[in-house]
């Protein structure tokens, strides 16, 4: 599904390398997790994959289903099936959540040459999906993320994911700022989307999210590289011993 080879990325504005040769393959239908200490480049990887400005790819490639995404605009990547659940979902005053969702869904359908959803069809789908995420009518009506609590923002991200039905979902610290109940709700939303044709890349600091979203593969990232790859037990090792042991081991 996603194949990243030797990816080198620096900041556009300053002379600083952040990713220093990332190699990573996420197979179709699998859930991969990336863990790592602060500043290891996890969030940068998610931004570069989804097309945020301000980064310069100096080497390497990233292919989604065999197509290089690094030259695409963010909206093209989205239409190709890539989705990033933001660590800090953005507040957009003046744009209604429902309008935003419908515009996004139909823009992607249009880009893929599919028929756009009518207002009535859309409403039916969004109501059902919002209900399972405990998102009420008021949250759908309000401006995007404005005045939402931390938990509501993350649930809203998962709702977008559910509506857009991407093939490759990247979750950037979706657990940050969530209490246990909110995390469970979000994890249930993600698990409901797990599918043989859909892959996930879950970025997190902590193992506890992975109790709820069970990964197939766990990677440890440090200083801009994947330094260790293993099964779910690797996450437990981090939880018990911290990153120091692993980093010492691979150094």
């Amino acid at each position: 599904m996603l194949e990243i080879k030797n990816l080198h990325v620096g900041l556009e504005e300053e002379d600083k390398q952040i990713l220093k040769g990332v190699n990573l393959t996420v197979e179709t239908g699998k859930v991969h997790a990336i863990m790592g200490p602060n500043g290891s480049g996890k969030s940068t990887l998610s931004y570069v994959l989804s097309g945020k400005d301000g980064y310069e790819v100096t080497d390497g490639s990233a292919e989604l289903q065999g197509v290089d995404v690094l030259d695409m605009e963010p909206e093209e990547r989205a239409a190709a099936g890539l989705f990033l659940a933001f660590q800090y979902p953005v507040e957009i005053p003046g744009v209604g959540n429902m309008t935003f969702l419908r515009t996004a869904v139909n823009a992607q359908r249009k880009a893929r040459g599919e028929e756009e959803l009518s207002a009535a069809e859309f409403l039916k789908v969004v109501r059902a999906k919002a209900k399972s995420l405990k998102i009420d009518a008021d949250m759908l009506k309000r401006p995007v993320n404005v005045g939402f609590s931390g938990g509501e923002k993350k649930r809203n991200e998962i709702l977008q994911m559910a509506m857009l039905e991407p093939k490759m979902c990247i979750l950037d610290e979706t657990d940050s700022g969530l209490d246990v109940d909110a995390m469970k709700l979000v994890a249930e939303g993600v698990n409901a989307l797990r599918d043989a044709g859909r892959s996930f890349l879950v970025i997190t600091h902590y193992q506890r999210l992975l109790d709820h979203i069970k990964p197939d593969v766990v990677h440890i990232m440090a200083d801009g590289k994947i330094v260790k790859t293993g099964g779910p037990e690797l996450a437990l090792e981090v939880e018990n011993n911290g990153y120091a042991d692993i980093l010492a081991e691979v150094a």
Partner: protein
Amino acid sequence: MSAKLKNKGVVPSITVPDGGKWASEARQTAAALLAETGLPHRRDEYWKYTDPTTLTAPEATPAAIFESDEPLPFDGVDAVKIVFVDGVFDAAQSDALELDGVEIETLSDAAQKDIHWAGSVYGVLEGRGQYPVSRPLASYNTAMAEQGFVIRATGKAAKPISFIYLHESETSDAVIHHTIKLDEGADLTVLENGPAAARINAVMEVEVADTAAFHHVRAQGRDHERRTATHIFARLGTESSFKSFTLTVNGILTRNDAIIEFTGDNANATVAGACAGDGAFHHDDTVFITHDAVNCESRQVFKKVLRNGAVGVFQGKILVKADAQKTDGYQISQGLLLDENSTFQAKPELEIYADDVACSHGSTVGAIDDTALFYLTSRGIPHKEAQDMLTLAFLGEAIDEVEDEALADDLRALLEGWMARRHG
């Protein structure tokens, strides 16, 4: 006074139109003031950011007629429609001048009479608005206007009055003056749309008596080459309400002045505007609000989106006199620049002599929020569409000031249509 004389502009040679006693007096008073101040020029403090040359020139600069097949703004609103062509009232295209609770008369008819209630408003509110800042274009208008309406609301109007200004001649030069009086408890909505002429000088005086409510919604359309100077003068009685909103899209030069005076306690006024300019576009909102009564609330909300070298100007003043305690004055002006060639200039002014007041003002200028733009595009919304969404959201905060939901929705739809056509 000596300072004013030193800066005196060119005094045009004018002959005021003939009329009955009240009109002649008002016209001569205005002409005399104009002779004292002269026409505005770039050295005037309130014309520093907007060059009035084309507004004061003897002839209007010709303006090509803007061809468009889109429906007129407020077309679907059930209203008494009054049509002007190149600044001249066209009875044949207009509805009958009949509306329950409202008397509607042409200025030219009213001006023939020796005695008319209009004499207590026409040139009077405008005259009060000449100090401390002189407004020579309004003096000129009061002295010379023969077109316009004299409207008195005695109760709640059954529907709005909608002025439609059509532009058909490339060299038309329009002077329009509306005189509006709302009696105690009256309620009236006035809609305006259209470019009017190649050059327009428009004045609207509105006397809002105690507990009356006046609503004004205006759409200055996409006629690119027109030049417009408008003044609204309003005087507000006790517990009255005044709300004015203007949407402007394109137009080479627009100067909208609003001069509001609170004379009765517990009244409120809102002056708001949203504008979107592309290329040769200069748009100036100049507001002067005088609080001379207790516990009144004023709001100024102005938003401008500018691209390709467009210029936006905002000059907003709140004057709170010594006895105007418990005044609540709010002012916000914001410019959204879509490129580096565009300019937004803001001059907020507060002058407060009372000690128990709450006045706040804010002025910002910025670009589209990249983070928001990325968020929208990362969900698959194309860049241009995302930019339009954010632009509409920005202007929407000014449109929110329009009380009537249906009219506000009309304005949003109008703006969306104009945005969409820009890509066409």
